[in-house]
């Protein structure tokens, strides 16, 4: 029963983030946040990591599978806390309201959906139509469609990033842009580090 209310909240907010993200983020930031709802988001994240680990390492070598899963989990957790820390710095620099970590965690967790969709989509398409693409008409068409979907999810992600800063820290557009300029090199270094460590080529943020 303890997890039923957050589950209903999660389902409601999950659909609302797709259909009506602006009002949903505003409502979540205003009406007090039941942080337990993010548990279900991370269930999906963990399911994805399991799926990706199976895809990359196979199931015949449990050591490799466990290693891959743990590295994905640790890398994404560190990425999540890095973002929360950056937002906290942003709050220290610009925000005039009180800092509520719970509100920030819930809003930023919902912004993981476009990331999760992209990784699931890419992984599934990797099985259905493995790369590399050819330069035939079918190869080109598929590549362009894949890029259109990827760009759509990226823009959706950027929108949720904006809404997180707008409603969790109550910032305006100019301050969000300035903070983004500040965050970008840090995120780039994190992405480079993850690439060098061989965890993932595109960071799970």
């Amino acid at each position, binding site marked *: 029963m303890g997890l039923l209310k957050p589950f209903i909240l999660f389902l409601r907010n999950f659909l609302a983030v797709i259909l009506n993200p602006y009002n949903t983020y*505003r409502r979540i930031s205003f009406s007090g946040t039941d942080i337990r709802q993010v548990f279900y988001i991370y269930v999906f994240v963990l399911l994805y990591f399991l799926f990706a680990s199976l895809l990359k390492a196979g199931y015949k070598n449990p050591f490799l599978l466990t290693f891959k899963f743990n590295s994905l989990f640790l890398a994404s957790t560190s990425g999540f806390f890095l973002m929360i820390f950056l937002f906290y710095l942003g709050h220290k620099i610009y925000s005039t309201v009180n800092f509520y970590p719970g509100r920030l965690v819930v809003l930023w967790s919902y912004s993981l959906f476009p990331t999760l969709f992209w990784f699931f989509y890419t992984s599934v398409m*990797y099985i259905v139509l493995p790369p590399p693409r050819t330069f035939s008409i079918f190869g080109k068409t598929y590549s362009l469609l894949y890029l259109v979907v990827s760009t759509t999810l990226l823009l959706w992600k950027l929108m949720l990033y904006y809404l997180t800063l707008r409603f969790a820290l109550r910032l305006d557009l100019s301050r969000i842009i300035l903070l983004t300029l500040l965050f970008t090199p840090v995120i780039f270094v994190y992405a480079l580090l993850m690439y060098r460590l061989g965890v993932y080529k595109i960071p799970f943020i």
Partner: protein
Amino acid sequence: MKNDRFYRQLVLKMHEVSVVPPQTVGPFTPLYKLLVSRLKFFPVVAILPFSLFLIFIAYIFFGVLLVSLASVLQASF
């Protein structure tokens, strides 16, 4: 009046709506409002054609390089 349920809900909603002041961007405010109004409800409907347009422009400039980019991205999960 203060015990009226509808009144209390209305006040709460008004507080929620005014949780952040309206965003202005100087002379571009009307354009900003127009763009944002399309993104507030089911934004995918607005984002998808825009992405299509972006990729079309990118294809004109970069051509088959986009095919290589798709191959790299598809192996990047």
